[in-house]
Each structure stands twice: as structure tokens, then as C-alpha cells.
């Protein structure tokens, strides 16, 4: 069933992709085929493969149980949080929070995770910013 669903979704995406390519407005032609042809070839091939998937699906993959999905969503949300926190809270604080949280998700003790988070974000910051010269945001709340 999974393969049938992905095959169907893929087909929709592919058709949308091909439609967009077909409707590209090209001001002047720099070469005989222009920017449309390559995406259209991809769309054609992918249409064929996704139809194949609809007709001949593999057996069902073993999906994890609900609790695991929930944990995965938490981890993903923490990534989104990190993307937004990095600039405002700065690398040190955001990374400490992220590492602590992930350590906890991987069955570490909370305080041990916190220690790991503080120590490793300090180490990483020193290593990248001071030793390797790679800029990392200090954080808006620290005036960075």
C-alpha cells in the first residue's frame, strides 16, 4: 500500500513539475531546446516509473509504532526550533539546548545531557570560531 500511495503522490508531483516546465515563459531562446526540455524529459521518465510503482508495489515496510513517530516529531520540531533560535539565542545557548534535548531523547540522564551540552557547545564554539576561523552567531540577545 505504501508504494501505491508514494507512487500516486509522486505522479501528482511529477505532473505538476512537468506542467510548470511546459508553461515556462522564455524571453529569448539562447539554444534550440531552452530551459523546458530537460525538466520535461525528467517528468516523462518519472511519470513512467511512478506508474510502475502503482502497478507493481513492493511489500510493506515495517513502520515504527506510534510512540516512535511522536519522538521523531519532537526531534524534528527541535531542529526547527534550532533554525530559529540560532540567530536570536546564539550558537552557545541554542546548541546547549539542542544537545541536552537530543541526549535526553536518546535515553541519557537529563543532567548528564546538560553537562554534555554545555561542555560540547563551548568546545565546538572555541574550536570553530577561534581555531578554524568559521563564524558562528553569538546571538542577538547577547548583542551579537
Amino acid at each position: 500500500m505504501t508504494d501505491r500511495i508514494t507512487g500516486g503522490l509522486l505522479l501528482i508531483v511529477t505532473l505538476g513539475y512537468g506542467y510548470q516546465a511546459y508553461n515556462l515563459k522564455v524571453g529569448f531562446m539562447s539554444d534550440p531546446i531552452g530551459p523546458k526540455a530537460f525538466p520535461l524529459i525528467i517528468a516523462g521518465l518519472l511519470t513512467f516509473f511512478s506508474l510502475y510503482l502503482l502497478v507493481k508495489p513492493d511489500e510493506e515496510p515495517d513502520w515504527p509504532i506510534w510512540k516512535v513517530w511522536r519522538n521523531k516529531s519532537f526531534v524534528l520540531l527541535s531542529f526547527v526550533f534550532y533554525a530559529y533560535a540560532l540567530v536570536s539565542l546564539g550558537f552557545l545557548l541554542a546548541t546547549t539546548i539542542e544537545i541536552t534535548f537530543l541526549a535526553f531523547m536518546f535515553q541519557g540522564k537529563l543532567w548528564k545531557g546538560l553537562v554534555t551540552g554545555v561542555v560540547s557547545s563551548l568546545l565546538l564554539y572555541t574550536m570553530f570560531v577561534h581555531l578554524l576561523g568559521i563564524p558562528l552567531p553569538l546571538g542577538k540577545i547577547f548583542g551579537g
Partner: protein
Amino acid sequence: MSSFQSLMQGFAVALTPLNLLLAFSGCMVGTMVGVLPGIGPITGVAILVPLTFAMKLPPESALILLAGIYYGAMYGGSTTSILLNVPGETASVVTTLDGYQMAKQGRAGPALAIAAIGSFIAGTMSVVGLMFFGPILAKMAIRFGPAEYLALMVFAFSMISSLAGRNLAKALIATMIGLMCATVGLDPGSAVPRYTFGQMKLYDGMDFLVVAIGLFAISEVLVLLEETHTGQSVSATVGKVFISIKEFFFALGSIIRGSLLGFFIGVLPGAGASTASFISYTMEKRISNKDDTFGKGDIRGVAGPESANNAAAGGALIPLITLGVPGSGTTAILLGALLGMNIVPGPLMFQNHPNVVWGLVASMYIGNVMLLILNLPLVGLFVKILLVPRWILIPLVTALSFIGVYSVNNSPFDILLMSGFGVVGYLMRKMDYPLAPVILGLVLGELMEKNLRRAMSISGGDWSYLFSSTICITLWILAVISLFAPVIFTKLGELKKQAVAGDEEI
């Protein structure tokens, strides 16, 4: 200039303190990445590429570091295969068959030793091969026009698709997804934005590093969330990593066979270290399994594949450097890194960037010696990394991925994009799609389209031009054959098994 002079010039590059340090760091990181199951060379290289950009390393130094990770990982991969029955890399899967048996019999020492020595011999042989065949192939490739390049890329795609996964359709879908992602952004030929949905951030296209780190590193974090056990236990003791002269000579034939086979498989576009080690094991079994000792701790079953994967890693650099067409996920990332530094690999690499090519070759001689030293007496130290609990290791790798992705464009948006690809990568893994073709498609997509359009400009829109030269036709035929050969071979194999129960040539 003769090859010898060029090589000396290369050593002058590789022996500068910075480059020696980078080669050593690459080999260290590579071995670590190899030892750790789940983190492969592709993840290691992808995380480090943006850092080499941000540090503004010169191209030869960056390549020395990144290639070190790639071939270093081939050394480290055998360690956990032998000690824990858990392959550190896909290229070391077959090493578990005899390696772990040897460890169970208390012969972990000789198994680790022969893996390191075999890797060293194979690695060195492949550098010699790179030195001799690289320039020859470059001379041949100089006659390649856009139509030939296009056909060559199609050949690379069909090879990797037919070898990468169990389901050919899914591997091809993965390739197409990569190509699709490659078309996002401003079209360089006509300055028309494609699939940007009005987002200025997408005008530059999707960065292959963001996609690669998402697909490989982040999806691995999501996969690992499913495993409930908290830490790996290193039960087997390493013991003394030592091998008797007698045992070494017993395995030498397998090492040399594995090296030669691995090298030539590596040179093929689309086939890499994993394929090489697998075929080498099958071949060794056919040649050497007279007393039915394979799978029961035969040292030749470790020596062959471990040599083959190292030789393949070296061989795979040849199409990358001389043709600009990588054959695996990791070499695709190396190509992307070179392009990012404004170095376009191709037939003229040897003339235009001798420092990069010969510096790399020389550094690989040095790196292999370093790796032999790192992996023979110090293997016990590397095994210690496995004692680091997962709740420290995984958050750290994630943090490094964040730093890597962020430093590509200094943009937090890329972290979101990376997380998105992490989800895609996770779902694809679960549904049995190979991931390497996506990266290959993404990195090669732009070049492929450029060559297609250049060919069409030459021919004035006549599509038959794509099949007009002998080289083109040969490559197209090879592409079709490689696509369907595995399917046909398995069918034939099944038929043969029913007909005769004897050994057949592959």
C-alpha cells in the same frame, strides 16, 4: 613533464606542514567514521566540505583532507565488522562473514592485521594505478564532446541505479528526484527561474551539501531513534594485532586479486567500494573455497574484500578527476566540492591543476602509510570510540551537521531545508530507496543539462546527434546493458541453479 617529475612536484605540495596535517586529520576522521556504524564516509565528507570552504583552504589542501576521509573510512570499516559483526560501512558488509568468525575463534588480531595490511597494499596499488591510468584516460577523454559526456553521465546513472538498490524502479526514481532537485533555481542558460515558487532563497538552487547532510546524517538520527538499546557493548577483545609471515603469504593472493578487481570496478562510473568488496568475496569464494572454509573464519575472506574496497576507493577517483563524472555518492560530493572551488575536473585537470592532482596522489601515498600505522598498533584506541554512549555521540554528530549546513551560506533557512531532506531521507530508507543516486543526480544534473543543450546547439536541435559517434553509441548501449544486466543475471542464475548444481563462471 614526466610522471616522475610531476609526482615529485606533488610531494612538494603534500609535504607542506599544513597538507601533512590535513592528510593526517582526514585519515583520522576517516578511520573514526569508518569505525562508527551508521556514519559513513559520505556523511563525514559532506559535513566537512562546508568547513573547508569556510576555512578558505586552497583546493589541493581541501581535496587532500576530504579524500583522506574517503579512503580512511575504508580502513576503519573492517574493525567493527570483525569485532562486533556490525559493518562500519556498506563496503565492509561481507567482511563480517569471515571476520567475525575469526574473532569468535580468538583470531581477531590476525583478522584486523590482514584487513589493515590488505588495505595498505590495495590503497598503494590504486594510487599507482591512478598515476598511470589517469593521464591515459584523460588523453582519451579529450576527444569527448557534449554528446559523449551526456551519454557517459547516463551510463553512470544506470550503473549506480542498477547496483544501488534491490528495486531498479526505486533506484531510478531516486536518480530522477536528484535531477529534479538540480533543476531548481535560476536556469543558467536563459536566466529563467525554475521551481523557485517566488522564494529568493531558492534562486541559487538547492545546495548539494544541505541535501546530502539532510539525507544521510539527519535521516540516520531519525532511524536511530527507533532502536531501543542504549549502547553498544564491545564484547570481543582486540588482543594483539599481529599476523605471522606464513598467514600473510597465505592471504597475499587474495589481497592482490582483490586489489586488481577493486581498482577496475572503482574506475567504472557508478560502481564503487561496496560493489567491489561484494564481488571480491564472491570471487574469492569461488577460487579459494576448496576445503569449504569460507564463512567459517577464512582469512582470505577478509583479505580479499577489504583490499577490494580500498582499491575501489582509489580507482573511483579516476573518473572523478579525468572525466568529471563521479561514480558514487561520496565522489559526487567531492565533485561538488571541487566545482564549489571553481575547479572543473576533466581531461585538462592534469595540465591546468597539476598541484591539485599530483598533490592528491602524493598525499595518498603518505596517507596510506599513516593509515597503516593508525590501524595496526592503534586499532584498540579506535575501538574505544564505540564505548562512547549514543546519547553523547548522536547529539554531537547532529551539532556538527548543523554547523556544517549553517556555514554553507550562513543561513538558518538551510537548517530547515536540511531537516526536510532528513525526513525525505528517512522515508526513502524505510521504503527501500537508495540515497546515493539522489546526490549523484543533484550534483550531475546541471552538467547534464548543460551538455544536452550544448549538444543541441551544435546540431541545431537534431536529437539524432546524441547517437552520432561510435563513443556515444557504445556508451548508450553500455547504459542499457548495465541497467538490465543484474535482472537478467539473477534470472539466468535461477535457471542455472535449477538445471545444474555446479559452479558456474560469473
